[in-house]
């Protein structure tokens, strides 16, 4: 649920990075944080376990620039990927405006990707969102790994609704900003549609 503040002339939107455990959601946010100028970002918060697995969420506030005299602020969140943190994932999806689904390209993780995307659909449905309607992009991460499945296979198994898709290697930044730009565009386009 975007928040338009006429008084401070700001639009605030919430983007959630979703996906199975260890797919690279937090790595995406770290890369964005490290490559963004200090004026455009706030402090990154990671609520993680001692072994740096996401426990509740990571949070990164970004300011992209002005549009029609309004500052655009995007709040990026990740969810914990492990199956047993489902209650936390549901909470973080509340009020979401757009989703980046980060899939792990390794063949061995294909079922985990599928399970996570079904879980996303269920959790969205619980909050009265429809996965077919909410702005969403797919990112096929870890393209650098030797066991990465061909892009066509990932598309066939995961991209059932023709979402925009991006190849990525979040550790070196390949595809990270392309993914972010696309989801930000889709969210803003939705905002425009919603006000018609």
């Amino acid at each position, binding site marked *: 649920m975007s928040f338009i503040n006429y008084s401070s002339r700001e639009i605030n939107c919430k983007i959630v990075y979703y996906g199975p455990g260890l797919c690279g959601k937090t790595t995406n946010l770290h890369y964005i944080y490290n490559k963004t100028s200090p004026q455009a970002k706030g402090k990154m918060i990671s609520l993680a376990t001692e072994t740096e697995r996401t426990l509740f969420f990571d949070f990164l506030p970004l300011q992209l*620039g002005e549009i029609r005299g309004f500052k655009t602020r995007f709040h990026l969140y990740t969810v914990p990927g492990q199956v047993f943190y489902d209650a936390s994932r549901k909470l973080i999806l509340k*009020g979401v405006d757009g989703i980046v689904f980060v899939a792990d390209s390794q063949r061995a993780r294909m079922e985990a990707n599928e399970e996570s995307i079904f879980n996303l659909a269920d959790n969205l449905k619980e909050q009265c969102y*429809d996965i077919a309607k909410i702005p969403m992009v797919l990112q096929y991460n870890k393209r650098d790994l030797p066991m990465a499945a061909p892009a066509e296979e990932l598309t066939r198994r995961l991209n059932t609704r023709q979402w925009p898709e991006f190849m990525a290697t979040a550790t070196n930044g390949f595809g990270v900003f392309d993914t972010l730009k696309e989801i930000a565009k889709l969210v803003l*386009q939705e905002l425009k549609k919603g*006000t*018609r």
Partner: protein
Amino acid sequence: MSSQMVMYDEEFRHIETVCERLARDSVARAVFLIDKNGQLIVAAGQSANFDTTSLASLVAGEIAATGGLAQLMGEREFSTLFHEGDRDNLHISVVASRAILVVIFDKRTSLGLVRLRVKKGAEELETIFQALVERTAKEGAQTPFAELTDEDIDNLFSV
């Protein structure tokens, strides 16, 4: 899908007035009103001393987690939280079902006074939010984003 939240200048000023009065009357260090999704609406008192963006996101996460706990226990919600520190204390309460009122206070005041003033402030905020919801329903179609072009969006990324 939940409805979009829009804040107009007039309601914003009203909310600001209520929060500033609450900060003054409860002798608090700072008062924040936060959207349940973690976006700051209004800051009053000595708010410049705090990282308000982080604070808003963490408080919203905490309220969401507490709401989850409430559901597990068959409660509608736990509407108030209190954190006691060595120096500062936090009083957090849900207002009008969609916003969170945070009061940060130290030993110059008491929890009793804060609770009393929060209750009064929350009632006023509820009235303002009710008016805001009605106004948004009426005026929602007249926002500048109806005129948004693809070029506007592209320009955002060309900087």
